[in-house]
């Protein structure tokens, strides 16, 4: 027992990541031209938990967020892991070109930052950063965020309110700039793991065609968001 304690102490001492509580200011900017973000989830957590990983199938909690913008499942999962969460800093949707800033106080040991939010209008697209190591040195740190496809739903690009997990369709187009009558781009998802989103197809017919999305409005290229973390 004593030996165990000694080992534990040494491990703590050797750890280069001195696990101290930190004050973070996190700015999230929507870099896209025509995509809205659903309520954003920012979380500081330990290395015991991971929200997503490219090449690995999405968890049901991530699927809820990616298909319908519902972050409650991820929050429950993170709470159980003693994470520090900031939910919905923009008080709703974050429009193209807009930014939101939030403060996040982290507990000792919560040295990784993850941020996720769904892209609307998409079937299961989300912007995400997973387990970014929070610097211990005070300063301002910026990085770009890519758009992922959760791999849980075919990108049919039909706006029909389908936001629940497993329900085919796009829940909403907040810009009120989508069409109707799309026959559906596809019914297949070739890569069922989390992967880089290939982008929406769209078309130039707002009352018919394959897609309800507008190919002059709803496309994007990576990066789709920028995050600036200021460590106080």
């Amino acid at each position, binding site marked *: 027992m004593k030996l165990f304690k000694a080992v534990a102490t040494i491990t703590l001492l050797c750890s280069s990541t001195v696990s101290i509580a930190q004050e973070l200011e996190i700015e999230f900017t929507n870099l896209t031209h025509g995509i809205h973000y659903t309520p954003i989830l920012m979380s500081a957590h330990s290395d015991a938990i991971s929200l997503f990983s*490219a*090449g690995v199938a999405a968890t049901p909690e991530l699927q809820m967020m990616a298909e319908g913008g519902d972050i409650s499942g991820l929050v429950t999962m993170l709470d159980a892991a003693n994470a520090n969460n900031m939910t919905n800093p923009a008080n709703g949707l974050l429009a193209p070109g807009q930014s939101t800033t939030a403060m996040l106080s982290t507990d000792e040991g919560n040295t990784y930052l993850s941020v996720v939010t769904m892209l609307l209008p998409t079937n299961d697209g989300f912007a995400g950063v997973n387990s970014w190591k929070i610097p211990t040195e005070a300063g301002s740190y910026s990085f770009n965020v*890519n*758009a992922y*496809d959760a*791999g849980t739903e075919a990108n049919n690009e039909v706006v029909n309110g389908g936001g629940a997990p497993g329900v085919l369709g796009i829940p909403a187009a907040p810009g009120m700039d989508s069409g109707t009558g799309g026959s559906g*781009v*596809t019914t*297949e998802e*070739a*890569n*069922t*793991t989390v*992967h*880089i*989103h*290939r*982008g929406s*197809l769209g078309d130039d017919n707002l009352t018919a065609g*394959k897609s309800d999305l507008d*190919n002059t409005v709803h496309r994007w*290229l*990576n990066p789709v968001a920028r995050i600036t973390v200021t460590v106080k």
Partner: protein
Amino acid sequence: MTVLYKQSFTSTAIWSALGVTVLLTACGGSDSYAPQPVIPPVPVIYSYEVSVTNLTHAQPLSPVAVILHNEGELFEIGISASVALENLAESGDNSQVLADDIALASASGVGVIMPGMSETVSVSITDTQPMMISTAAMLVNTNDAFSGFSGMSLENMAVGESISLLTGSYDSGTEKNSETMATIPGPAAGGEGFNAERDDVDIVTMHAGVISNDDGLVQSVLSQAHRFDNPTLAISVKRVE
């Protein structure tokens, strides 16, 4: 790495000093002189693991090529592709890249990496510390797109250290992006791979992505599923020895 190198340098210096001492003693005319046994140098192995994850939706990757080199580049923006790279980018055949003159050592992935899948390729070299590493693989449902990196420095990488990076897609510039069935070798088409004719810009550039038939390119054999955005690969390079 620097530290290791210094240590071995120091011990070499010590051995040399001893050698000088022995020589001086021998010059002293001692009858008890016996030749020192020759100590063969311990071979130094530099070994790396390159893990590649395919981040695309529907672009299988040709077998990954990994080369260690001290000079040159596997590819450079604005510079004409080598024939070896042209082969890799148009047909997915990495054999010429692996055998390239600049390669001190090389290794190939065992096979195609499907979307969402990963593979780790090991490469090692004895006695020569490699300065650079390059990696490339073709996105096979394209005319001549590939992803990877060229000439990443290994100089300061210590054993156990790793570097993770996300790589974009490049156009080898050696084949027009017609997207026709006859010209794309991947499973979406089954067409021709390598063709020596260079009917495109003949410089390596970033790739603009595929258009696809669904997006209005009537002659394209590709569907919306084959479209891609950057990054296309997640690559981790780790020095293991």
